[in-house]
């Protein structure tokens, strides 16, 4: 037998305080088996195009997958999907922690939130029981306080909480959703959508773990993690130094985004802000997610300044509040990270938007009056905390910056738009396309704006052919190696697309990309098939999984086409095509002609229309998405 489990979905009508249970039959769930694939499927089924993302018409979907909750590393991930208020496209965001596994262990695959509650509420789930409760006493509280109050109110510490902070309540366009006070569904402003619904939190009772289908086979796969960690120095290093372990390396190569991407070179601050320095100075302990042996999460402490409750900064946070802003003090970055986790802000967009404001200030586009006396100069670490608080509370200049760099630039005018380093309105993460051109290509074409976790990075293709990385990539048809990371030929474009499909599997099955990726990670493509077989009795193949990944991308792209997006929106900022003027990367830039040619090749390989960059009818039919062809009638 090769049957797929049904999905159990909670539908919560916030306006009418009505909760219903829906079941998606296994044969349908198998096509969209969790994460944002399930999320966008539900949106396309039930939501009209053209709605205001912050209106009650937007749907908000929390989803896990058919695999979530199994006791193995890298499997406790939560996806949140809605129309994004930051980009206007499909919104998609993932986080780890313990919430996802306990949510699944309560017997649920997804929650769909509809409408807007009359007054602030939170949802409480305990097994089959789901209840809408008043959030009157926690509205306006930062995450740490709200978490304590909810536990006190329920007289229960055995709960997991995913919540918004004041930034989500104030509809900051890049507000996020926080669980454990330090794990974020960071990108695309999903916290603002939650705030627009007067939904403060989702609370789940901790529940007993999910049992694997084939205990023996599963146990073998799970227990092999120890040996895999011993043999994999990349993942072991990630555990020891966190994601920030490579920050100084990027600077050394000349590709650490610095001072709003004007340079890739940060000699004054890279050493102070890199993961090894964090390890030696403010790191208090390493934290983990449910059942995960990697322990990559940072917990930092600066007595009297930074509270370990709020975790510690990732690489992206160290870069956006560090090098992007020219800030050289790790303490300032750790405090910025804490404030973002308290108020519920995406650290990438927040740090990048402040860096944008600093460049505007230095160029006279934001004057002293608009800056309210704040010296928004690169390197001025003393303003960072105050600006974050202003953004979270939408006070003064913070109200402008709460819109994200692109909308702020349009309000400022006078050419400020060129200083917004964003795609589709979402600020770029800290991986430079000048060094990783295929990642840049995916930044451009990705349905929900620039994202560094949507494809494998170019540099793994320079590893020797007998390396784990290259051997695994062969499994998904990536055969060509390179002697440098900078090329963007047709095979590199194919690498971008095929690895994007693979990462799309991960964002569907809600698997951690550090553990279950296609090259350097702990488990590879063969293992993921074994996980499905032994975990839930799903006798799948890599072929079926790649189709699932591709289906998700196409549904998202179709969603965007309903909203009026097309190839004109697949653009990188002009700055990336201008040569660096200093550091080891001096003279390096992306070549515009080659990049545009690569984008056309990408559409061609994806089976998308060359004039619009959107999926063709034939492509949709090939992916069992023929039902979407008439879906535009809902516009």
């Amino acid at each position, binding site marked *: 037998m090769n049957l797929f489990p049904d999905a159990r979905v909670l539908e919560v009508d916030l306006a009418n305080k009505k909760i219903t249970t829906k079941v998606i039959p296994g044969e349908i769930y198998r096509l969209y088996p969790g994460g944002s694939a399930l999320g966008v499927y539900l949106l396309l089924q039930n939501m009209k195009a053209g709605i205001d993302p912050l209106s009650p018409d937007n749907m908000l979907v929390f989803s896990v997958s058919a695999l979530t909750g199994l006791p193995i590393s890298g499997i406790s991930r939560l996806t949140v999907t809605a129309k994004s208020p930051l980009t206007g496209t499909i919104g998609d965001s993932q986080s780890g922690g313990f919430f996802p596994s306990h949510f699944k262990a309560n017997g649920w695959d997804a929650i769909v939130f509809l409408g807007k509650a009359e007054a602030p509420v939170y949802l409480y789930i305990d097994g089959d029981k789901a209840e809408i409760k008043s959030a009157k006493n926690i509205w306006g509280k930062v995450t740490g306080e709200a978490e304590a109050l909810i536990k006190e109110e329920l007289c229960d510490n055995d709960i997991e909480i995913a919540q918004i902070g004041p930034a989500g309540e104030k509809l900051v366009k890049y507000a996020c959703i926080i669980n454990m006070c330090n794990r974020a569904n960071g990108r695309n402003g999903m916290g603002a959508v939650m705030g627009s619904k007067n939904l403060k939190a989702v609370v789940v009772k901790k529940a007993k773990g999910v049992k694997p289908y084939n205990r023996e086979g599963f146990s073998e796969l799970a227990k092999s993690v120890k040996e895999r960690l011993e043999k994999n*120095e990349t993942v072991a290093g990630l555990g020891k130094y966190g994601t920030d372990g490579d920050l100084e390396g*990027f600077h050394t190569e000349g590709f650490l985004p610095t001072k709003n991407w004007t340079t890739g070179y940060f000699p004054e601050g890279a050493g102070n802000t890199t993961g090894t320095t964090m390890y030696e100075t403010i790191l208090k302990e390493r934290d983990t997610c449910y059942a995960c042996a990697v322990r990559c999460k940072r917990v930092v402490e600066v007595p009297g300044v930074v509270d370990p409750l709020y975790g510690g900064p990732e690489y992206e946070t160290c870069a956006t509040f560090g090098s992007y802003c020219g800030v050289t003090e790790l303490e300032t970055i750790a405090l910025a990270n804490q404030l973002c986790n308290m108020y519920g802000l995406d650290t990438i967009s927040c740090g990048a938007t402040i860096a944008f404001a600093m460049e505007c200030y230095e160029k006279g586009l934001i004057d002293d009056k608009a800056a309210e006396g704040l010296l928004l100069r690169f390197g001025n670490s003393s303003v960072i905390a105050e600006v974050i608080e202003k953004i979270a509370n939408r006070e003064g200049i913070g109200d402008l910056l709460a819109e994200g760099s692109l909308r702020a630039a349009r309000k400022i005018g006078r050419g400020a738009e060129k200083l917004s380093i964003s795609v589709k309105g979402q600020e770029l993460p800290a991986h430079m396309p000048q060094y990783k051109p295929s990642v840049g290509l995916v930044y451009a074409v990705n349905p929900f704006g620039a994202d560094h976790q949507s494809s494998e990075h170019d*540099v793994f293709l320079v590893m020797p*052919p*007998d390396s784990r990385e290259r051997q695994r990539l062969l499994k998904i048809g990536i055969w060509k*190696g390179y002697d440098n990371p900078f090329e963007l030929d047709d095979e590199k474009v194919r690498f971008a697309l095929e690895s994007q499909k693979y990462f799309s599997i991960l964002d569907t099955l809600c698997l951690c990309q550090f553990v279950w990726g296609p090259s350097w990670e702990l488990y590879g493509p063969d293992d993921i098939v074994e996980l499905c077989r032994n975990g839930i009795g799903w006798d799948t193949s890599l072929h079926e999984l790649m189709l699932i990944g591709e289906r998700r991308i196409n549904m998202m792209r179709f969603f965007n086409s309903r909203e009026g997006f097309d190839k004109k929106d697949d653009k990188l900022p002009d700055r990336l095509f201008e040569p660096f003027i200093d550091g080891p990367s001096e003279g390096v830039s992306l070549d515009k002609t080659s990049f545009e040619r690569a984008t056309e090749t990408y559409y061609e390989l994806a089976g998308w229309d060359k004039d619009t960059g959107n999926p063709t009818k034939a492509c949709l039919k090939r992916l069992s998405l023929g039902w979407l062809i008439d879906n535009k009638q809902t516009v």
Partner: protein
Amino acid sequence: MDIQVNGKPQSIPEDYTVSMLLHHMNYPKSVAVFINGRQVLLGEYDDFGLNERDVVKIIRILGGG
């Protein structure tokens, strides 16, 4: 003996292998190494001997996250 690593002169003892060079220069083993334009296999790092005037390119692997 003298070799060139990433465009800079480097002096190393005789009988140095790729692994020894990486260790000497504080590189992890998970890097790409090209000697006189030819990529060295990972399985060769421990035994591949370097010669006078070799031109070595080492590429650090800086991934995602």
